[in-house]
């Protein structure tokens, strides 16, 4: 039997994870659609994340599938933190691309409203763009005037610097010289003095300085920094995003498995870098 509304064969429903099915339903209800390949890949991602104890730490997972704002705005983890896109994005089967001038996504995740965000968080961004460009943040929130605090990822700025900010930038910044932006980038923090910047599952920078600055009171953006100095997005970037997540801090083993799981997801969709 075929369910015309979803394009899923009935026998497949039983094999799909309940959380994956709920995500598919949210996409459909929003007016978006997913191919069977996208559904299969997303379902496997859910299974892999759960098998590696990565599901629970997630607050938001944006798989960027469905080639539309309605589909890409949906959070795989739950019905909370559904995103919204500004004008200026391009949606494709390979991911979402901001124009680098005015485009950003509001994740609706406010760090100040998350328990212990300052000492227990992560942000991840799968970039499919090779050339370093721009001087902003691919995702994040913070006070640009003083850099106190900043929470975000820059992958990779002009000048070949990749940055993970997780507090006052003079204290809590993790920086690495990189020439190729194509990768799965992860910044995670497990304590006020334990931060790691990870590229494709490999730690590229560590920061052990103590920082206890309060978390930013504004929503994390993708494609730009939500600048609390001006209460508006700023410092836009143009790298294509094929996955992003925000959640709790991860162990080294989780960080490694996270890359493996996300890369497998991208490979299934033939958009891995």
């Amino acid at each position, binding site marked *: 039997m075929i369910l015309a509304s979803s394009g899923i064969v009935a026998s497949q429903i039983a094999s799909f994870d309940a959380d994956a099915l709920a995500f598919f339903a949210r996409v459909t209800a929003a007016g978006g659609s997913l191919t069977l390949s996208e559904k299969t890949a997303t379902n496997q991602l859910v299974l892999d994340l759960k098998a590696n104890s990565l599901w629970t730490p997630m607050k938001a997972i944006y798989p960027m599938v469905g080639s539309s*704002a*309605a589909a890409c705005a949906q959070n795989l983890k739950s019905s909370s933190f559904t995103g919204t896109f*500004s004008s*200026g994005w391009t949606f494709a089967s390979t991911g979402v691309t901001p124009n680098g001038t005015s485009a950003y996504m509001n994740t609706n995740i406010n760090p100040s409203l998350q328990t212990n965000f300052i000492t227990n968080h992560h942000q991840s961004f799968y970039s499919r763009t090779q050339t370093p460009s721009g001087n902003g943040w691919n995702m994040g929130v913070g006070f640009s005037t003083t850099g106190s605090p900043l929470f975000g990822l820059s992958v990779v700025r002009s000048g070949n610097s990749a940055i993970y900010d997780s507090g006052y930038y003079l204290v809590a910044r993790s920086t690495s010289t990189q020439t190729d932006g194509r990768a799965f980038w992860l910044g995670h923090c497990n304590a006020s003095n334990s931060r790691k910047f990870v590229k494709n599952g490999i730690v590229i920078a560590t920061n052990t300085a103590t920082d206890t600055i309060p978390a930013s009171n504004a929503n994390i953006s993708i494609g730009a920094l939500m600048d609390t100095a001006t209460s508006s997005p700023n410092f836009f970037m143009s790298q294509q995003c094929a996955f992003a997540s925000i959640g709790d801090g991860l162990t080294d083993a989780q960080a490694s498995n996270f890359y493996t799981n996300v890369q497998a997801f991208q490979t299934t969709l033939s958009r891995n870098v």
Partner: protein
Amino acid sequence: MIGYILTTKQYDQVQGQFINPYQFINCVADINGDYFFFGNEQDKESFKDTEYMWLFDLPQEEYIPPIQNEKP
């Protein structure tokens, strides 16, 4: 980059307005403080049948971003 230039009144009218539950309008100021809207072909499709389609009929000009202060 070429964008559609808005008057301040037009900016106030459209900034932050949603065209559907998942997409909204964001305009940015250039070096002179003039507001610009950037809409691609996909945006144009999304804007169809909305009250903001006129944005795509505005005059187009080269956008020069404002000079930003030294930042982190």
